[in-house]
C-alpha cells in the first residue's frame, strides 16, 4: 500500500518518529529546565558498571577487588556482561595487538557517558613488557580517566581509583554535561594513530 506524500524509496518502512530530535528535547527539558544535572552525576558516579573485558593478568587482582574482602560492589560498581549496558571499562594490564581491536570495539559499543580506568604498569607505559613487539599502549586507543600504578596493583588501589573517578564525576559534573551537550566536556576522544583492527580484515 502506498502512502501519499512519502517518497517511493521510503515506502514500506516503519516510522518511529525522529528519535534524535525527541531525545534532544527531553534532555534539554530534564537537565536544562528541571536541573536534574546533579542527580545525573550522582547516579552515574554510583553506578559505574565495569564491562567484562579481561585484557591481561591484572584480571586476577580485578577479580580480587570484587571478592568479599574488598567488595567493589559496595561502591555501586557491578561487573556486567555486555558493553551495551555498562559505562566503565577497566583495562586490566597489558593490551596486546590482538586485544587492542577488542578494546577499541568494546569502547565504541558502550553508550555515553562512559569512562575508562587503566590498571597496572603495563597499561601505563608497557611496564615489564615495555620493549615487547606485541603490545599497545591503551591510551593510544581510548581516553583514560584514571591510571592505577602497580604490577599488579593491589585491590585497594582499584577501589581507590573507582572512588577517585566518582569524585571527579561529581565535582566536575562530567556526566550531566556530557548528556546535555552530547560530547565530553573536559577530555577529547582519542583517535587512534594506528589501525588496531587491521589484522581482522586480513
Amino acid at each position, binding site marked *: 500500500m502506498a502512502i501519499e506524500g512519502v517518497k517511493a524509496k521510503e515506502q514500506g518502512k516503519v516510522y518511529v518518529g525522529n528519535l534524535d530530535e525527541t531525545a534532544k528535547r527531553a534532555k534539554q527539558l530534564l537537565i536544562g529546565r528541571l536541573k536534574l544535572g546533579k542527580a*545525573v552525576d550522582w547516579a552515574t558516579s554510583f553506578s559505574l558498571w565495569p564491562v567484562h573485558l579481561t585484557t591481561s593478568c591484572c584480571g586476577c587482582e580485578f577479580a580480587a577487588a570484587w571478592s568479599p574482602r574488598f567488595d567493589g*560492589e559496595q561502591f555501586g560498581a557491578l561487573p556486567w556482561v555486555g558493553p*551495551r549496558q555498562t559505562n566503565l571499562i577497566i583495562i586490566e594490564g597489558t593490551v596486546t595487538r590482538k586485544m587492542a581491536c577488542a578494546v577499541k570495539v568494546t569502547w565504541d559499543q558502550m553508550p555515553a557517558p562512559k569512562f575508562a580506568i587503566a590498571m597496572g604498569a603495563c597499561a601505563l607505559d608497557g611496564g615489564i613488557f615495555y620493549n615487547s613487539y606485541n603490545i599497545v599502549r591503551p591510551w593510544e586507543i581510548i581516553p583514560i580517566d584514571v591510571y592505577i600504578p602497580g604490577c599488579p596493583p593491589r585491590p585497594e588501589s582499584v577501589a581507590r581509583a573507582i572512588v577517585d573517578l566518582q569524585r571527579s564525576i561529581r565535582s566536575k559534573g562530567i556526566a550531566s554535561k556530557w548528556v546535555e551537550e552530547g560530547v565530553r566536556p573536559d577530555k577529547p576522544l582519542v583517535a587512534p594513530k594506528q589501525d588496531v583492527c587491521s589484522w581482522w580484515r586480513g
Partner: protein
Amino acid sequence: MSLVEVLASIVFYPPIYQLVIVGLIVTLGVVIIILWFERKATARVQRRLGPYHVAPKLAGMPQLLADLLRYAFQEIIIPRTVDRGVFITAPIIATVLSILPIAVVPFTSIPDYWPIPMDYSVLVALAISTVSPIFLVLAGWASNNKFSIIGGVREAFIITAYELIAILSILSVSAATLSFNFIDIVNAQMNTAWFIILNPIAFMAAFLAVLMSTSGFPFEIPESENEVVAGPFTEYSGILYGLNMGAAYMKRFAFSIILAVAFLGGWSPLTPGEGILYGYLLPSIVVIIKAFILMMVFSFLRSVYGRYRLDQALQGAWRLVFPMALIGFGIGIIEAYLGLT
C-alpha cells in the same frame, strides 16, 4: 464531599488504583526494593557488604535508584542492522503486558473495587501473562545479534515448557473450587484452608513455573551470561535495557500476586469491611505483602543455586514438574468431589 474524599475516590477508582498505583508505582518500588534485597541477601550469603556507599545510612537502598537514573540518561544505541520498529517497541509492550494481569486480579472481595469484575478472571489473568514472552522473543529476533537470537530461541523453548505447567497448576485451584473467579477462590480458602496446605503439589509446580517464566535461578537460561551475554537483550542499552531488566521482575511480581491470591489465601486473615480503608486499601496491602514475601523467596535462590542446562531444564519441566502439575490438578478435582472446599 470533602477534598479528601474526592481525591480518595479518584485514587481508589479501581482501574487507576490497580493499574497506576499498584501496577506502576508500587511495582516500581517493589522492583527497586527487591533488586536491592536480592543484591544485599546475596552479599550476605557471600560474606560481603553489597551496595553500601551510595547511602550508608540507608544501607545502600537507593542503589537501584542510581542504576535506574543512570540507565535513563545513558545514550540509547540503536544499531543500524536492527529492525528498528520492533527493536524499540518490543520491550515497551513486553513491560506493559507483564504488569497487565494485575488489572484482572481482585484485591478485595467487594466486586465494586475490582477494575474488571468478571467470572473468568483466572483464565484472563493467565491468558494475558502468556503474551509478554512473545515480545521478548521478538526483541531477540529484531536485535540481529547471534547471542540475542540464541537467547530468544531459548526463551521460546522455556515458554513451551512452563506455560502448560503454570496454567494447569493454577487451574487446579479452579478445579477445586469449581470457579474461575478469584473472589470465590479466596472465599473458599477463607472457609477451609489456604491452597498451599490443601494442594502443596500444585503450589510447588506453580512456583517452579514462575521461576522458569521469569528466568530466576536455577532456570536463568535465556539470559545465561556465560554463553549468550545478555540473551535477547544483548543489543539493548540505556532505558530500553532498564525496561527489559525491570520487565522480568514486574512479571514476577504480577505472578506473585496471582499466586498469593490463588494459593496463599489472598487477603485472608482480613475480612474486607465497609469503606475504602477497610474494604480496599488494607486487603490490597495484605496481598502485596504476601506477594513480596514470595518474591523474596524467589530472589534468595540466586545465592544457592547455579543454573541448569537448557535440555536439563526442559527435561525436568516435562518429566517432573508437568506430572506434578497434573497430580495437583487431580488433587484439585478430588477435593472438589469430596467437597473439601
